[in-house]
């Protein structure tokens, strides 16, 4: 009888990627089943920073909940704040001044650009291009400075309140935003020169981590990741809020569904965001920056849902109200949670190094997954 040479036989083995791994961008643990370098199966383990925000919110008032939504996807802090404010305003049928809508739309889009800049940094770095990291962070600084001047905060600002804004924009706001747009219009093509055209980058992303349209819809993969697969899921188009039904912009779409498509959608989105800001920045009407709301906000009994387009996809808030000042039940539908569920489908059969590229293109923010 010939004994089998077990050393050379193919074997599956299991390793942990994370919870402390630079490419998971936070405390996410992926348990990988490997055959050599090929990933056979991925089991994400979430919950390392589960803070129970939904449970906490059941004891908080609506203006207080705004401050917790910052801490979900901290890179779309303003957009998440906006979701709570819109939900309360729509439930109470409160009309906010035009000025507020203009400012909110501009700030939301600035947030989106800042978020995509940071994504571009870290995506470049995930693929080994450290230079990107410095370029991206350098340009993001300009937006953070604008935010700091107006809102007082750089990362988590809680600038929106039900009915309006915390305070009016800084007198320099319009000037600085315009300066930034002029500057960034020249800088963004540099991003293309530096990374998009790079042969190594293209080889590592084209055809890697494919997700078909049907899979994207079924897994609820939204935002740039879903649009990279051709899933037209932009809430700004399909359920407009703020001023998105008044401004002109294209929904960035790609059909390839691979890592490079998701990359291209995000770059296109930065151009579109700049277009939106340019249409609004000179026309901010005079008026109040806030309407007077009751000191204690109570939502009428019923169920409410608010969808907004955060930088990583569709963010939703579902509130069941029993008529009290705090919600009976609140559910935060975070885009990253659904996007993560498709990771196994995307990365099965690919190499570990490709998994890093795919993870980078999904751009997950872990506090948003764990909540």
């Amino acid at each position: 009888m010939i004994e089998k040479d077990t050393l050379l036989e193919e074997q599956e083995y299991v390793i942990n990627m994370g919870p402390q791994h630079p490419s998971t961008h936070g405390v996410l643990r992926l348990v990988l089943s490997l055959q050599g370098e090929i990933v056979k199966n991925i089991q994400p383990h979430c919950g390392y920073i589960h803070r129970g925000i939904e449970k906490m919110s059941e004891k908080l008032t609506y203006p207080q909940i705004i401050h917790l939504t910052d801490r979900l996807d901290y890179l779309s802090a303003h957009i998440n704040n906006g979701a709570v404010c819109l939900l309360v305003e729509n439930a109470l049928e409160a009309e906010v001044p035009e000025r507020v809508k203009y400012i909110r739309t501009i700030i939301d889009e600035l947030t989106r650009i800042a978020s995509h800049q940071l994504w571009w940094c870290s995506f470049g770095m995930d693929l080994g291009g450290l230079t990107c990291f410095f370029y991206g962070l350098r340009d993001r600084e300009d937006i953070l400075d604008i935010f700091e001047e107006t809102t007082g905060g750089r990362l988590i600002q809680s600038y929106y309140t039900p009915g309006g804004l915390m305070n009016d924009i800084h007198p320099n706001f319009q000037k600085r935003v315009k300066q930034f747009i002029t500057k960034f219009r020249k800088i963004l093509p540099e991003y293309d020169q530096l990374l998009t055209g790079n042969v190594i980058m293209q080889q590592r992303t084209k055809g890697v981590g494919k997700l078909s349209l049907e899979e994207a819809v079924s897994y609820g993969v939204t935002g740039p990741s879903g649009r990279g697969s051709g899933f037209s899921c932009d809430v700004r188009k399909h359920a407009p809020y703020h001023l998105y039904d008044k401004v002109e912009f294209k929904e960035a779409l790609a059909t390839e569904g691979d890592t490079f498509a998701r990359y291209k959608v995000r770059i296109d989105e930065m151009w579109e965001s700049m277009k939106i800001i340019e249409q609004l920045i000179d026309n901010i009407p005079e008026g109040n920056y806030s309407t007077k709301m009751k000191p204690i906000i109570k939502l009428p009994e019923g169920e409410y849902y608010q969808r907004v387009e955060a930088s990583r996809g569709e963010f939703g808030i579902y509130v069941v109200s029993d008529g009290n000042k705090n919600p009976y039940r609140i559910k935060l539908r975070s885009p990253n949670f659904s996007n993560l569920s498709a990771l196994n489908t995307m990365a099965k059969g690919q190499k570990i190094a490709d998994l890093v590229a795919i993870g980078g293109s999904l751009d997950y923010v872990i506090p948003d997954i764990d909540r």
Partner: protein
Amino acid sequence: MQKIKRNHKHPLPMNVDALKEKILAFVPQAEVIEGKQYPEVTVPAGKLRALAKELKESDETYFDYLFNLTAVDWPDQSLGVVYHLTSSKHHHYLVLKVKAANRETPVIDTVSDIWRTAEFHEREAYDLMGIQFKNHPDMRRIFLEENWVGHPLRKDYNDEINIVER
């Protein structure tokens, strides 16, 4: 490479009445209300899977995108699941609601094979609200530790150490 053709000439989205008629023809016991925001349908737990499949596969409804799935501990002491649906083709909405038979062993059929996103969302609902989803491929806790006692989002959950009442 597979090319995706986008069909722009799709029929107009169904209005609430047509939707109501269709659902009632399929599940006569269903309760359909217009709702403030989205039309809402409450179905018996036994009929959920059949209706969900029909709503997704039928060309008229084509609810292929489950944008939210959550569990609620309703004020009348019952545990339920709420499904928020929309269509990538028609862009109309529907909210599906089911209630579990009891609090002790709440069991509801899984829809994770109809909408894959439900796989994670159902695990979350199990973890935080304790609803078991029948035939789910991987019914484990998703956020909390395996040996955690209880399901925190239930209204009767008690944790003397970590929850401080003011």
